[in-house]
């Protein structure tokens, strides 16, 4: 035998879950539980004996029910708190027993109420006394069981014995609030909810020291990190100092009550999202309602069922966890939205590289078969001469690089003058003035671009020591502009004007800008224009064409007095 009972009075070991229970604790638990059960069984048996069958069947069945409950509990106590088989780590077993005790004792109490309510004949002093004893014993069980069972799981000294107390005359005294509050229950759920909850940090705000301490111990053993505050002011200080996942908040407190604390919390961005469970006395419902309206997440009334407390803490923490997760998702969402926007911008820019903005917009709107008719535009074709001979001396890559340089420069110039560059074909360059937005001075714009392109090429030649030359052709007139095809489409132009301007270029002279009469007419007398004799244009027969050499400036006055055919 293991010297049972000799550990009484030993030094307090630090509380550690799972330490073997002092056998004396088990004995204490057995003793203190079996005593009231013995009373219940004993006195109900006596009453049964002393009541003749004929007298009252309800009495008989009531007593039988009481005996049944007590007998059931006794068996359970014996089974669970068995010296051989009891495991200190087996909280599930004591939980089950605790719940059983609570509910069976409740049944017994209800039976007692019924018995007392029955016919007057039963209300003899002795009967009431006995029933009173049964009642008291049942209450006693409910009071002491949780603490007794709780202590089975902790190390340390055996606690002071609970007062056994004598049965009062009618046994219907209310158990004192403190003892009730001392009921503790361990209810560790196997599911993930509790697994999440056990890392949480709780703040207990409660002015009664006993209650505070009991809550702290109980919740600590459940695996929570717990801090306590004895009043509202201190509670707010704690909140400032530390991060909490949940607050248990008593309503009635000195120096800032629960209402005030709740209000402050909800005003503060930092504390607003911490779940709050209010604790209050049962008759304080109005108060509780106010709290809920102010944003408390849940409430519990004293004395409260520890199972309920545990469940509600779990639920609130779960809620908070979900809320926190939601925040994380929202942030992630913001991040992705930003990236998406950036990507969309990129796509937009790419598209605008290919299409004029109004056309791009229309395409995005879902318009198909975009083909607009423009009555008045000037089309420019430019072709670089001497590129092919270049490729003899330098690598194809370098050739393309050079071409890129030139055409990039032309692109900037086209944009500068408000022309829409359409495409490049090999070493040919095509642009148009007067669309997508019509303009009256489209011919002038095209002329300016042509002249500046020549200057640009000169500079290029100087810089790169090349001797590239360029033919430029211009024509003015109507075109159809649009998109053809489904894949890899571009914004392109169709019409006679396009063909003619192309011919102007191909039938032109390197270093010169050749234009049709249409364009010449539009330019008026602001430019130095030299007529060229009729040129045989493929597909069009003989055409009068003109060379554009320069813009006439006012200073130059009459430079270039050749008449353009106006």
């Amino acid at each position, binding site marked *: *035998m*293991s010297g*049972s*009972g000799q550990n009484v009075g030993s030094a307090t070991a630090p509380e550690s879950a799972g330490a073997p229970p002092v*056998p004396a604790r088990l*004995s*204490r638990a*057995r*003793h203190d539980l*079996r*005593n009231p*059960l*013995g*009373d219940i*069984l*004993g*006195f109900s*048996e*006596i009453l049964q*004996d002393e009541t003749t069958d004929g007298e009252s069947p309800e009495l008989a069945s009531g007593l039988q029910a009481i005996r049944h409950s007590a007998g059931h509990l*006794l068996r359970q106590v014996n089974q669970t708190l068995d*010296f051989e088989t009891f495991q200190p780590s087996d909280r599930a077993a004591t939980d089950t027993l605790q719940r059983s005790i609570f509910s069976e004792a409740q049944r017994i109490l209800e039976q007692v109420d019924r018995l007392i309510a029955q016919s007057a004949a039963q209300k003899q002093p002795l009967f009431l006394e006995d029933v009173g*004893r049964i009642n008291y*014993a049942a209450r006693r069980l409910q009071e002491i069981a949780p603490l007794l069972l709780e202590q089975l799981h902790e190390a340390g000294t055996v606690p002071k014995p609970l007062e*056994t107390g*004598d*049965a009062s005359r009618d046994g219907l005294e209310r158990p004192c609030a403190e003892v009730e509050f001392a009921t503790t229950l361990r209810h560790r759920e196997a599911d993930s909810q509790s697994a999440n909850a056990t890392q949480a940090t709780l703040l207990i705000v409660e002015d009664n020291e006993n209650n505070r301490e009991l809550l702290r111990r109980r919740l600590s053993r459940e695996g929570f990190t717990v801090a306590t505050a004895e009043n509202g002011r201190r509670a707010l200080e704690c909140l400032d100092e530390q991060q909490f996942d949940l607050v248990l908040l008593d309503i009635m407190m000195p120096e800032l009550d629960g209402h005030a604390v709740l209000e402050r919390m909800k005003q503060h961005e930092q504390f607003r999202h911490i779940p709050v469970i209010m604790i209050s006395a049962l008759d304080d419902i109005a108060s509780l309602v106010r709290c809920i309206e102010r944003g408390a997440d849940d409430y519990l009334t004293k004395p409260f069922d520890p199972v309920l407390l545990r469940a509600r803490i779990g639920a609130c923490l779960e809620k908070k966890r979900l809320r926190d997760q939601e925040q994380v998702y929202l942030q992630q969402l913001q991040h992705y939205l930003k990236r998406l926007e950036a990507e969309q911008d990129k796509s937009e820019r790419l598209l605008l590289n290919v299409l004029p903005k109004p056309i791009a917009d229309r395409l995005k709107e879902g318009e198909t078969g975009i083909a607009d008719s423009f009555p008045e535009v000037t089309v420019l074709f430019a072709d670089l001469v001497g590129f092919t001979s270049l490729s003899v001396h330098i690598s194809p890559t370098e050739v393309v690089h050079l071409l890129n340089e030139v055409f990039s420069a032309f692109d900037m110039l086209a944009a500068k003058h408000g022309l829409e560059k359409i495409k490049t074909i090999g070493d040919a360059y095509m642009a148009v003035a007067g669309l997508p937005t019509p303009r009256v001075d489209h011919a002038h714009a095209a002329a300016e671009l042509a002249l500046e392109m020549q200057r640009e090429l000169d500079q290029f030649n100087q810089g790169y020591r090349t001797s590239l030359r360029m033919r430029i052709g211009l024509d003015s007139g109507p075109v159809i502009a649009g998109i053809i095809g489904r894949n890899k489409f571009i914004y392109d132009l169709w019409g006679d004007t396009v063909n003619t301007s192309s011919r102007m270029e191909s039938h032109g002279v390197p270093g010169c800008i050749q234009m049709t009469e249409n364009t010449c007419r539009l330019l008026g007398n602001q430019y130095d224009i030299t007529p060229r004799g009729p040129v045989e244009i493929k597909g069009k027969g003989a055409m009068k064409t003109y060379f554009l050499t320069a813009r006439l400036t006012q200073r130059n006055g009459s430079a270039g007095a050749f008449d353009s055919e106006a």
Partner: protein
Amino acid sequence: MAKILIIEDTENNRILLTRRLKPRGYEVVTVDDAEKGIAAVNDLRPDLILMDIGLPGMDGWTATRQLKADPNTRHIPVIALTAHAMQGDRDRALEAGCDSYETKPIDFNALFSKIEGLIAKAPGQPLT
């Protein structure tokens, strides 16, 4: 009429035992601790003792040992009433000299038959 001495510190249990035994025709005397009990034995000359084990002060085993050691009282059958709270209660009870034991909460039918059995076979009282 056989006389039973009940040494039991809890009032409820005293009441229960008394109210169950009296209707069976026993004369019942109760005391609430072992010392009073031992003192009463000589005066009372009970036919049987119901000895609660979990007594304050002198415990039931010590009291039983004392009674069994005393030639005047050794013949009186002692039934230990143990809460069976501790391991080895049963063994200790028997080792202390108890003639029988009953665990609480008491199964009265079993108790009654034990009482009857023990009183029936008790040897005659020695002459004082």
